[in-house]
């Protein structure tokens, strides 16, 4: 059972009148990858910087392995250099006046490590990130991906308790990003690191993390595993931020033990079942379903439930699959085509919305 490595309690940070971070409380377990996910300005980087000690909270406490490293109430503040954390900055912050090896050796030098031990640790760190051959290269002569690896090696060389990463992939091209994601995951598993990750890229957050905290306007919208967040979003923000959603306006027609029947008001009044309870008849709601749950059928399916008929408005080829936009009445429904299925613009198709995949939300 993993213990709690990092704990944030009631952390608030104000810039002037605005609250950049508003009362955040959460626990991060040892050995897990925890991501802060959200749009620009949601407070995720500020939170990370407070964990690192580069910003000071106005309220709250942060504890590392149960020991407070900053506590506003008790006027305690541990300087960043004493916190034993590693950090990879968005710009990598590789020092231009040093070589790769000197960059990586710096944390050891300031800790007074002996020369032989230093050499060995630096070599191991560079091996971990695959840059052993670049040890003597001057820092300015590195590509973006190489700089990122140096930053990683430098953060790991002193075996920190926690590794903090501030949007480390945002300056890399797509292919490199995919590659680094896998390498980072493998590295984390190998070393048993606790990773705290900040990103606005949901694919990154979902694929790398054990736990994700979705943030917006300084607050946490939802914390959970990637699967939970994706399949069972708790708020419309989370629902819309993660993945795509197809939304359809509806009105409750009847409700029973199996679920509720809704009328899709702008989709030619078609009837849809869902397995959600607790609504009143006549209530206006929003139905939401992931596009990948929708099946697109080119042949008419007689008398099946949760089936809508519409025309294809556009088809977008995406390589591994095609996305198509289907017009049903006044609603527009995005769905994916099975590989091998082709449809033409203007073609009449049937879309099937499985009842168990529909979630219902209050009408905004």
């Amino acid at each position, binding site marked *: 059972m993993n213990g709690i490595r990092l704990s944030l309690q009631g952390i608030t940070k104000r810039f002037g009148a605005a609250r950049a971070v508003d009362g955040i409380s959460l626990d991060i377990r040892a050995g897990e990858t925890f991501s802060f996910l959200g749009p620009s300005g949601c407070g995720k980087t500020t939170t990370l910087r407070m964990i690192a000690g580069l910003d000071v909270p106005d309220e709250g406490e942060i504890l590392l392995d149960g020991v407070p490293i900053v506590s506003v109430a008790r006027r305690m503040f541990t300087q960043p250099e004493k916190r034993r954390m590693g950090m990879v900055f968005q710009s990598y912050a590789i020092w231009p*006046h040093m070589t790769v090896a000197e960059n990586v050796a710096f944390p050891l030098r300031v800790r007074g490590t002996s020369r032989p031990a230093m050499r060995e640790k630096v070599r191991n760190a560079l091996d971990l990130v695959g840059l052993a051959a670049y040890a003597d290269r001057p820092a300015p002569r590195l590509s973006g991906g190489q700089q990122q690896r140096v930053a990683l090696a430098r953060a790991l060389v002193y075996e920190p308790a926690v590794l903090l990463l501030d949007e480390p992939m945002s300056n890399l091209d797509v292919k490199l990003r995919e590659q680094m994601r896998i390498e980072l995951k493998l590295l984390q598993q190998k070393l048993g690191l606790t990773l705290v990750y900040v990103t606005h890229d949901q694919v990154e957050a979902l694929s790398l993390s054990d736990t994700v905290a979705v943030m917006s306007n300084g607050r946490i919208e939802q914390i959970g595993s990637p699967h939970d967040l994706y399949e069972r979003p708790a708020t419309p923000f989370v629902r819309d931020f993660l993945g795509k959603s197809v939304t359809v306006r509806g009105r409750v027609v009847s409700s029973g033990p199996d679920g509720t029947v809704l009328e899709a008001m702008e989709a030619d009044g078609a009837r849809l079942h869902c397995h959600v309870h607790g609504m009143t008849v006549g209530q206006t709601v929003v139905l939401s379903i992931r596009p990948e749950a929708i099946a697109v059928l080119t042949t008419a399916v007689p008398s099946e439930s949760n089936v809508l008929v519409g025309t294809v408005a556009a088809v977008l080829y995406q390589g591994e699959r095609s996305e198509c936009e289907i017009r049903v009445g006044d609603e527009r429904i995005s769905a994916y085509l099975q590989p091998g299925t082709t449809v033409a613009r203007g073609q009449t198709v049937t879309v099937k919305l499985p009842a168990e995949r529909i979630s219902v939300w209050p009408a905004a």
Partner: protein
Amino acid sequence: MPWPKLNVQATLFAFVFAVVAFFVLYPMVLLIAFSFQAGVPGEAFHFTWAGWHAALDESGMLESVFNTGRLLIAIQGIALPVSIVIAWLIARTDMPGRNWLEFMFWIAFFLPALSITLGWILCLDPQYGVFNKLALMLPFVHESPFNIYSFWGVVWAHLGTNAIAIKVMLLAPAFRNMDAALEEAARVCGANRFRTLLRIVVPTMTPAILTIVLMVMIRSMQGLEIELVLGPPFDFYVYSTKIYGLISQEPPQFAPASALATIGLLAILPLVLVQRWIISRRQYTTLTGKVQIQPARLGRGRYPAFALICAVVVLLTLIPLGFLFTATFMKLFGFFDIAQPWTFHNWIAVITDDLFIRSLVNTLLMSGGAGILAVILYPLIAYYTVRSAFRGRSVLDFLSWIPFAIPGVLLGVGLLYVFLGNPVLKPLYGTMWVLILATVASHMTLGTQIIKSNMIQLGVELEEAGRVAGATWLGTYRRIVVPIIVPVLLVVSVMVFVTAARDIASVALLATNETRTLALLQLDYMVDGRYEYAAVVSVVVIALSTGVALIVRALGLRLGIRA
């Protein structure tokens, strides 16, 4: 970080603040106080407005202020665009010989203004100037076409001594550090090189350029040596020579001079505030650790550009130097037609003089000491004003501007009051320490500004990475900030050394016979009318400055960012 309150950074800041306040603010306070003093400094204090009345009634005051403004516009109007183009050519294009040319601009900056002016007098004096004599030999020329004792002569002397060289020296490193991607983006959009320079490079470099422009504007009120020599023959006075005139009268008019200085201080105030406002407005980080040095290609313009800049360099250096050197071997300065005009006598007489040797040693001590102290103090000041969150930093920034605003003469007077009036410091009067401290104080502004405009470009994350990696604030400052700015520190150190070696204004009142420097010796010779001896001392000072510059340059090339 608000707490803990007592830490290395806060203590160091307090110390730096105290030192700067004492050697910069305190003399000014004394100066303002003495503008109201009825008697001479050192006597008991009697309040009076007489000094202010005398200052404002002084004849030609308005005209001298007007002249200062006219000069400023004429000089900067030419120098700024020229320097920007030269700095860009040197730092960001593939112009041939650009490293060598940049070095020549370094040399040009180091040449003492007084000496170079002397050289140009030899060329452009209406009666015996060589260029005029040559022109008169042409059949259609009946009058001396050149006259250095004129408004444009003064402008020419400024352009030839300081105005262009200093800007090139300051702009080139800043241009070099700029992220090439910004320029390349413009080129890809279709802008040609010149357009890119105008619309992308210049605006991005705006804080660096503005800092320099503001500096130079303020500096223009100071210009003493050139106007002192060239002005009187055609009754041309500027603000600083007016003040100098008041002090060098018999008896010296300290109170009116102090009053005028106070007015000058007030005039500077808005400029400093403007500069602070500019820097606070936007993010201008252009050096984040990702340094790209990719020169723009000039194509067919390469050699014409080289030739043009070469011509500029020759005008700035070789011509005046050549004539100066010639003068050292002449019996009579400027007279080529007498029998046996050439001689070694000047050299022998000057160098074997005890006075000369003592002055040389003094100069080395003063300049060397100041150069070392400067690169310890100035980066700290720059750091605290640019980087830290301390509440006193705007005040510190303002304090660091003061020495620039005050004509050197008056800073010297103020410091004289400080040393003589303080029982702890009084024993230092008459030693080299007075001169060293005065030099460090009076060159604070330029040095700090140069370091600041480089520090602004240093990304904060470079330091934060150091903190998170385990270094204390002091450790990060020592191992990351300082090594990255070492090239700039070397520039500043050499600048302080060289400007100290030729400084006259701030040290004239503080030096005794024992502590006299070479620059003062040169001035003494000129005042006595012994131009040939003055030329010899000039050449020695120039050789000294150039030698130091060469050594430091050789060292500097091996430190700093390796690319």
